[in-house]
């Protein structure tokens, strides 16, 4: 099972992971063309800055015991038993935002435009060349590792 592992010491706060994530969810776009000013531009990963501590990349951990899944009453969030990734189905979502409140990492948020769905990492649909954010990180502050559970 693949996970994104974070090494916060290496993060420079360049936000390339944000751009990559937005681009991965804008059909047909690339780093040149992705529209960062569109109301649909939503990143599924975040970089926080703490004075003294530096940059903190916040990424979905696809937790072993995901609080988001446990708190979801409509079945919109499910943990895939094969990939181990926590997937979100917009059609089943009741927009109650219990998951947003329960994620211990604060990585979930309602969408900006309509506030009718949750913005969540989909592990880039497990595409063969790996998550877009990881490929775009110049510092290898985020890497994909195989974990055995």
């Amino acid at each position: 099972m693949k996970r994104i592992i974070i090494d916060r010491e290496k993060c420079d706060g360049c936000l390339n992971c944000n751009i990559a994530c937005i681009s991965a969810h804008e059909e047909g776009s690339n780093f040149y063309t992705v529209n960062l000013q569109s109301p649909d531009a939503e990143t599924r990963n975040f970089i926080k800055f703490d004075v003294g501590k530096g940059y903190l990349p916040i990424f979905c951990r696809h937790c072993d015991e995901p609080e988001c899944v446990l708190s979801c009453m409509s079945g919109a969030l499910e943990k895939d038993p094969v990939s181990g990734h926590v997937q979100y189905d917009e059609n089943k979502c009741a927009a109650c935002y219990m998951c947003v409140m329960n994620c211990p990492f604060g990585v979930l948020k309602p969408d900006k435009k309509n506030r009718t769905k949750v913005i969540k990492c989909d592990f880039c649909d497990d595409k063969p060349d790996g998550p877009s954010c990881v490929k775009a990180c110049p510092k290898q502050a985020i890497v994909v590792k195989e974990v055995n559970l």
Partner: protein
Amino acid sequence: MNSNFSCKTCASADKKLETFISNLSVDTSHHRMEGQSIKCGFGLQGICCRLCSNGPCRITPDGPKGVCGATADTIVARNFLRAVSAGSGCYIHIVENTALLLKKTAANKGAIKGKIALAKLAEIFEVNETDEHVCAEKIADLVLADLYKPDYIKMELVEKMAYKPRFDRWKELGILPGGAKSEVFAGVVKTSTNLNSDPVDMYLNCLKLGISTGLYGLTLTNLLNDVMLGEPSIRLAPVGLRVIDTDYINIMITGHQHSMFAYLQERLIQEDVIEKAKAVGAKGFKLVGCTCVGQDLQLRGEHYKDVFNGHAGNNFTSEAILATGAIDAVLSEFNCTLPGIEPICDELKIKQICLDDVSKKANAEMKPFVFEEKESQSNEIIASVIEAYQARRGVVALNLDAEHGNDDTLTGVSEGSLKSFLGGTWKPLIDLIVKGEIKGIAGVVGCSSLTAGGHDVLTVNLVKELIAKDILVLSAGCSSGGLENVGLMSPQAASLAGPKLRAVCESLGIPPVLNFGPCLAIGRLELVATELAEAIGVDLPQLPLVLSAPQWLEEQALADGAFGLALGLPLHLGLPPFVTGSSVAVQVFTQDMLNLTGGQLIIDDNAQSAAQTLDSIIEKKRQELNI
């Protein structure tokens, strides 16, 4: 060499070079591409600003404006105009030095090798002087006087040089340039912190800088050099790493200011200097061409048969040329003198001398060129090159590639030599275009880069697509250095052209890609285009002619591009010039420009689809001309 480099080098259209570089034990740009493969998205889109300490600001979904309120449109336009100003400054530096040299050469009754160029300039500038030295000095003075005007006084030679319909349009748009140096200054001021924030005003300013860059930095640099150095003439020449001859003391030259080498070049083939070379075991001295100054020497090679051994390669071949171990010294006076040559020169004991501090390398000897001291300076340079030769030859391992390149690249093409090749008139070319034997012309110009597929990859693929569509390609800049090394400028490349262009090339014995030499010669392409338009009686945007800088590299290329757009020509770029983060920029360059100047930017890094787009533009222009 104590380096910690990747062993995976980037692709090159030149497969022999790719192999050569991948086997090197020194670090080159081709090795470093991999380590720089992850690019910053804000940089690529041009939406990062670091004009003040509240920044750097980047445009993000949560931060749609900079702290000061600058929008993406403002930030992109400021960055772009800054880059165009810097690029213009580079070319204006070159023409300024060239004009100063012509002035001094003329005042000292030095050789005037290009009588035709002198007569042509005298006619354009309306200088009536029978004495050629007085005439040349007046011409230089007129150029310098324009360059040094303030920005609020228009340059006088613009109207004399520009094609009338273009001049009129520029006047209507209010983009006639003031003094070229001051315009660079104005561009820098305008783009500083909390000054101009009007993107459209800044893009019009770019066009203005394009005009001063093109007419002075490009066109005039060529013509002034022609006066001093002799006009180009068409001939076949060897190119590639094969031109390096280890029997000689070899000096690689990099830069754009060819006239700075004029005296040294002659000195290198004088008897007493050859004797000095013989005394240390060499047959004499040879200059090995690299970057645009090499392209320029190649272009005028007819005048320099003894001292110039040929053009070895473009900007991103320079490290490989040094890595052959057969180069004893590098003389540089401008870009593209890559910082990457420094450790290679140290490792291989290659002497570095800079003639102009704008291209000072950290570990090089600085010897600013002084016209009055050219005799003693040349002797000192020769002495230190001999010293380097003695210290390194036999000690440093050689790693040559006699197979690289070819012996039959057609060079020496210019507005003058091409016209005389055609019999002193453009009519034969126009007839071929009217009959459709040549569908149109594409100027494939500018730099070489390692992006867009790798070294020269997009350039070479695009050119192959274009000639297959019966479009004649004229090339100037490092793009020509790549195109010639892969054989596209050899007569047998005609077989790669479409049936009609192929027949034309075979009957004339020419390749389908004509080599105009350095990037400065983009100014010569403009002269060709203007003369064709004049002969047909149309304005430039009506010609079945397109421009492409598939692998544009740097700020100068952006200033060239601004000239192309001011001329009203369709301009293709492989990669966007860091403007796609602004919808206004995209709108201005790809749509509104058509109404402003007739020009248009096309961005496409796919050779096939880009060639199709350019082909359909040419077809459309043919239809509009009823041909």
